């Protein structure tokens, strides 16, 4: 209750529209936000109130992601308080088939997004927007968007256009943009650094979500950053706090991403023998590093790169490998059962590994892992530990990201097959562009992380032991 009172007080400071509306939003979000800090950050009350305030200022689409992350974290979190748990039960995630909520969200959105016309019924709970409408809109609004720092804006645009893709790259870009934002940040008078900065970060995050939904690794990084902010001792001056935060971010990037990759590479190359034929799917930064390092060590092996539409990321990886002198075979995902009989190991990257051992990765990974399993080929997943998450997921439908459907209808370079150009006008036709899928844990033989080589069943142990005790540093 005191949380709610605090929130009401802070609410009165600002002049906003109807109180009842605010209260509704607030109650909905409070329950969800409480769980975000429930794992051991004791000053949850202040944080949640700050979050509420920021949530009011921010665009409600943030609610989608934060509540979705919060809800899923809540399932794995050990000890949310009893009160929160009871209020969490009718979970108020923004479902996109709920018209009133969607209307509210649209009114406050920074970016105007038109909803896609032919929406796939099965995915009504996920946002389906018409792509291509956001970029010109954002560009036009550049000089009007005050709250968004230019580096964050730049990163958002890069996400939108697809220039930065891949879990690690997106995470690093975002954190570096936050570093810049913190450097230029000045505490307004009468506000505390902790609360205001957290609010600002949340507003940046909601902007980034509008550009492209967050990946799980980015969500973890944001959580880390917010926890560091709240842990700042109040005795520090503003500039000291800022430098401390910046060095924290630097440390996180170095230790959790860059150094972790090195450790993973060292572990994984021990699994490559001379004469191996290694298969990889799509383009993963970790796997690429492993292959190049093994080649430098002088091991003799062949690589099979399996690619799929519509992103065709395998071509990028293929180019880099061939330039470094590896002998590669290139094929597409349909042919994976043809090529699998000559493969000895499969190396896959992951966007995240969930607590039930499910590997959440680019769409098509599940197919490759399944075929490898049938042919008795070991599947090795390379994933940094900061990407682990407490959420659980059984299939790829409950939570996913939908990409631009137009890229399916257009086949670049093959004019003869562009038959679906007018697809949006055809009534019964929908195009579905899934970005992720969930690979069941029984297809995965081993996960190589910076904590060692573990079986998929050990993932919740790592999540619990190593993230609980703030061993982020």
């Amino acid at each position, binding site marked *: 209750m005191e949380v709610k009172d605090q929130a009401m007080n802070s609410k009165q400071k600002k002049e906003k529209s109807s109180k009842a509306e605010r209260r509704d939003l607030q109650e909905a979000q409070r329950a969800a936000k409480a769980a975000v800090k429930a794992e051991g950050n004791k000053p949850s009350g202040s944080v949640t109130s700050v979050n509420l305030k920021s949530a009011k200022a921010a665009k409600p689409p943030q609610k989608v992601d934060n509540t979705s992350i919060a809800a899923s974290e809540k399932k794995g979190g050990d000890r949310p308080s009893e009160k929160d748990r009871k209020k969490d039960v009718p979970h108020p995630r923004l479902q996109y088939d709920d018209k009133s909520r969607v209307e509210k969200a649209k009114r406050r959105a920074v970016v105007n997004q038109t909803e896609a016309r032919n929406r*796939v019924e*099965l995915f009504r709970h996920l946002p389906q927007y018409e792509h291509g409408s956001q970029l010109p809109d954002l560009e036009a609004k550049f000089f009007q968007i005050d709250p968004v720092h230019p580096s964050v804006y730049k990163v958002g645009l890069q996400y939108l256009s697809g220039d930065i893709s891949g879990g690690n790259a997106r995470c690093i870009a975002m954190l570096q943009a936050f570093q810049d934002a913190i450097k230029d940040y000045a505490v307004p008078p009468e506000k505390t650094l902790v609360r205001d900065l957290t609010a600002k970060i949340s507003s940046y995050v909601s902007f980034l979500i509008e550009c492209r939904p967050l990946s799980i690794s980015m969500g973890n990084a944001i959580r880390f950053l917010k926890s560091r902010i709240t842990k700042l001792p109040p005795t520090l001056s503003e500039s000291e706090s800022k430098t401390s935060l910046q060095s924290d971010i630097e440390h996180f990037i170095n230790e959790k991403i860059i150094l972790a990759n090195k450790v993973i590479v060292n572990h994984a190359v021990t699994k490559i023998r001379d004469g191996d034929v290694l298969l990889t799917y799509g383009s993963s930064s970790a796997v690429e590093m492993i292959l190049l390092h093994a080649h430098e060590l002088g091991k003799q092996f062949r690589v099979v790169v399996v*690619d*799929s*539409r*519509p992103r065709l990321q395998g*071509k990028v990886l*293929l*180019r880099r*490998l*061939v*330039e*470094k*002198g*590896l*002998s*590669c*075979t*290139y*094929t*597409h*995902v*349909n*042919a*994976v*059962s*043809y*090529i699998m*009989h000559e493969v000895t190991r499969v190396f896959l990257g992951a966007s995240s590994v969930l607590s039930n051992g499910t590997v959440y990765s680019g*769409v*098509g990974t*599940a*197919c490759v892992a*399944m*075929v490898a399993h*049938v042919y008795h080929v070991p599947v090795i997943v390379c994933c940094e530990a900061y990407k682990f998450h407490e959420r659980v997921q059984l*299939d*790829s*439908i409950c939570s*996913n990201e939908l990409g631009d459907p137009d890229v*399916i*209808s257009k*086949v670049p*370079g*093959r004019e003869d*097959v562009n*038959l*679906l150009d007018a*697809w949006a006008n*055809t*009534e*019964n*036709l*929908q*195009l*579905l*562009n*899934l970005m992720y*899928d*969930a690979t069941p844990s029984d297809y995965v033989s081993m996960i190589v992380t910076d904590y060692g080589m573990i079986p998929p069943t050990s993932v919740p142990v790592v999540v619990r032991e190593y993230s609980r005790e703030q061993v982020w540093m």
Partner: protein
Amino acid sequence: MPDVHSLVNDFVNQLKKRKIEGSQATAKQAAELLRSVISQQRVPQTNQATALINAVRAVGEKLIAANPVELAVGNIVRRVLHIIREEDLSLATAAIAGLELSPGSDDEDDVERDDYPVLSAAAVAAAARSTLRPPSLQTLLEDTPISAANPHTSSSGGDSEGKSRSVDKSSRGRKLKHDVIEAVNELIQDISTCYEQIAEQAVEHIHQNEVILTLGSSKTVLEFLCAAKEKKRSFKVFVAEGAPRYQGHLLAKELASRGLQTTVITDSAVFAMISRVNMVIVGAHAVMANGGIIAPVGLNMVALAAERHAVPFVVLAGSHKLCPLYPHNPEVLLNELRSPSELLDFGEFSDCMDSASGGGSLHVVNPTFDYVPPKLVSLFITDTGGHNPSYMYRLIADYYSADDLVVKRRPATGS
């Protein structure tokens, strides 16, 4: 004759250059070509069937060699050979029956005639029994090979030079060709109408509010689904696009225009979506004798995903796709690798190919077909009804003869 030769050569060239797409079109053309060959073939007075068989074999060998992966051609050749043998046998038994029934036609050659029917009748009857009747222990024990029976009858026929005999023989020869051509016409008719007969069974398998998954495009599947739609079953279809030919786009457009709720997905999303699918319905390129299928690439992955999620995997195939051969290493031997330009542009990687760093080699693999083993197939729906994969070998006896499995001209029995 020259006309037929040029036809044959044209067809062989088309097969070699892979200009003909689809087993149905290939089968129909092959059947029509063989019909022309038969009608133009001169049959001698004796051994008509053998002459026809050898002629068809000669042409068939060329056709099969032109495109060994296109199994429909071989199937049709073997079907025609089987038709010739069957017609010959049925004519022979009819002739025997006719001879026994008309004793008074020719009084002169009583003695020989008495001998002739006895000898040849026994032999022909034995032969007839062994093939036209289901095998029983008695027939197996007294089995005499057909080829022995034929020369026997013809030689004894040559002995007795009755006028009725020669008239009988030549009319019998003409009748053989006539019958064979009629049967081949029936075969062509069957090939053309296999869609309707398969589509009739659609209503038994598709109910309301089902979700169906398919990959690539097959006319059989299209007709099947539309037939169910005609009967007012409402269902949704997920079509996987089937890279690198992207025929799924074609199918999706066609289905949407006929009023079915269609969603196009990428092939990589098959595992993700299959948990919400009730049935997978696909067409096949060829059905092997063990019940396995040769299917467009990617279907093995779909079949494995369907097995994992306990989704029935239904294959639609016309009977002209049933091949009497058993597959050995079909991924390699019954497969064709297509041009890599469908995956990679030729110019795209040329710059890093000849780099000085002892450059890596780049190899592109683009197979056309996939082999799906029989244990992954739940049901075959053919124009003769629904069958288990373990039953397909039995259908072979209906359509093919054991002598025709290897279509090579036999050097010993001269033509």
